[in-house]
């Protein structure tokens, strides 16, 4: 995506539908364990995404991100709970529903013998209002590879082709499962630009990632998933609540290094500096970054729930 051109805007901004475009309620997906028994890959998850929003699911490997997003795409059937997307139950929904969504799967190795533009043309005919192939090829920066076979692309280029295939149907709701895996830093920045331009067009975007900077850059709101549970939700600047963002003051004196969490850093500094007459060594005031907060939340989750992918919780209620 070296020469990124943003996709042409819609004639009018997409009509915002009232209420959430995605509603997930107490969603659970259980799989059989290899040694028998069941575990919940997605465990009682509830969230909403409104029209036009970019929502990121952030979590470590195996957290349940793909399982959740594939339930929303209609690729997997929930074990219990409800998922509603664009007013439909996505599993086995009609072609009219599929025409309104775009899907970029976490991994696919298909279509190797097809050319980039060719595979996009083949997909475009399935949709009522597809985007132009040239436009989409340009948007993901693959102009020079438009006629190359997909199997001849590098990992990152192949991933961009996948993104292009998700965009070709001109979806109003786009799902991206770890879209930037294998991108070089430049391509990743260009991809962020592309997603922002889609967001400005009114396209709703749901993406999963384990890159914090990606979530921070793109998401209007984000949910942190670990062990199948949604452990925190909010905007990149509010997630985790105000407590975890309380400023920290660090300094060094004869007794050694100190770190203090305080809502009043200025007065603390005044005290330790004797009203400004003494300079504390190595003084810093900082607020935890999203990364600090994320790691803190995961730690906390582990301490309350040492076995993340748990037995169904209502097990112990059974006779």
């Amino acid at each position, binding site marked *: 995506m070296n020469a990124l051109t943003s996709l042409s805007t819609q004639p009018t901004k997409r009509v915002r539908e009232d209420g959430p475009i995605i509603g997930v309620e107490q969603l659970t997906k259980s799989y059989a364990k290899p040694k028998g028994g069941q575990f919940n890959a997605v465990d009682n998850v509830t969230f909403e995404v409104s029209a036009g929003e970019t929502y990121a699911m952030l979590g470590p490997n195996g957290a349940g991100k793909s399982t959740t997003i594939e339930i929303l795409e209609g690729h997997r059937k929930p074990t219990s709970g409800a998922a509603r997307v664009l007013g439909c139950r996505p599993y086995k929904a009609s072609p009219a529903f599929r025409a309104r969504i775009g899907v970029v799967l976490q991994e*696919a190795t298909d279509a190797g013998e097809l050319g980039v533009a060719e595979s996009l043309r083949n997909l475009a005919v399935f949709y009522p209002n597809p985007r132009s192939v040239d436009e989409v090829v340009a948007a993901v920066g693959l102009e020079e590879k438009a006629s190359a076979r997909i199997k001849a692309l590098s990992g990152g280029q192949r991933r961009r082709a996948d993104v292009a295939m998700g965009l070709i149907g001109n979806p109003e709701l786009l799902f991206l499962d770890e879209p930037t895996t294998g991108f070089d830093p430049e391509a990743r920045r260009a991809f962020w630009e592309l997603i922002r331009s889609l967001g400005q067009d009114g396209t709703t975007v749901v993406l999963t990632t384990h890159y914090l900077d990606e979530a921070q850059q793109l998401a209007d709101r984000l949910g942190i998933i670990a062990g199948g549970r949604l452990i925190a939700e909010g905007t990149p600047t509010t997630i985790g609540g105000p407590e975890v963002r309380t400023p920290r003051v660090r300094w060094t004196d004869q007794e050694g290094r100190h770190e203090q969490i305080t809502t009043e850093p200025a007065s603390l500094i005044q005290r330790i500096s004797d009203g400004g007459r003494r300079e504390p060594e190595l003084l810093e005031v900082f607020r935890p970054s999203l990364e600090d907060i994320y790691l803190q939340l995961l730690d906390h989750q582990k301490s309350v729930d040492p076995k993340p992918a748990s037995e169904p919780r209502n097990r112990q209620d059974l006779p």
Partner: protein
Amino acid sequence: MSSSNVTASRSLNRARDPDKPWRPNTFVLGCRRTVVEIVLFNRDVASLFFILLFPILIMGLFSTVFGDEPTFGAEGDVVDPITPAQYYLPGLIALGTILSGFQNLSGYVAAERYNGAIKRLAGTPLPPLSYFIGKTGLTLYLIVTQTVLLLLFAGFVMDVPMPTDPQQWFTFAWVLLLSTGAWSMAGIAFACLAKSAQSAATLTVLPVLLLSFTSGVYFPFHRLPEWLQNIANVTPLRWTASGMRSVFLPEGWEMAEPGQAWHLGLSAVVILLWLIVGLVVVRLTFKWPPQK
């Protein structure tokens, strides 16, 4: 690129009747899929060569080994002997139905189940039926091309006499299509039951090899021991081969068949039964979207 044109045509599209939900045209998309399948298949030169030319290769090979004199006679010399090429033609056409229908489809569908191709398509508005129309189109393309090539080779290079009675060509057509259909269903069902793309590719060779020996493709069927004939009698290839023999072997050769008759009705029944069972198994095992 004129993006104003793009947006203009798009808003036109959006202005369709809002009360009528949009539906894709299953048949048109099926035809598009057919074109894609054929283009893709033609790029796989090794498969193309194997599927399309294998029967010709075998016919050429047998003619080299057994000569091109009329040395093949029926049991008891009830009729004039025929050339090895004429003798092998019906069996090789029958072999084509299992190559194009079963071997090709099971390999491709299994690969598409495991490499994400079906999952990708299931995420688009493409109806699953269009996917099947595409597979049917590809199979028809293969079986027709393969058979035409073999007939041309047999007729012009090996001087095999062709039937002149339209009734015989009619028999030829229904046996060919019904058998290919039955084998296609078996191939897709096989692909759905396979645990990996690799195991599907390896295992499909087995039925092709075994059945071609038990169905009178390479040896006269009546020379098989009776227990083997009984097993072969419940497989479709045996009935495809005998149906094709009724078309391409001269009159009198039915004396060399079990029961001294072609039993075309029985051919139709057995092949149709396989087609129906295959259809049911596919219906039960083919998942769109792939199940997880």
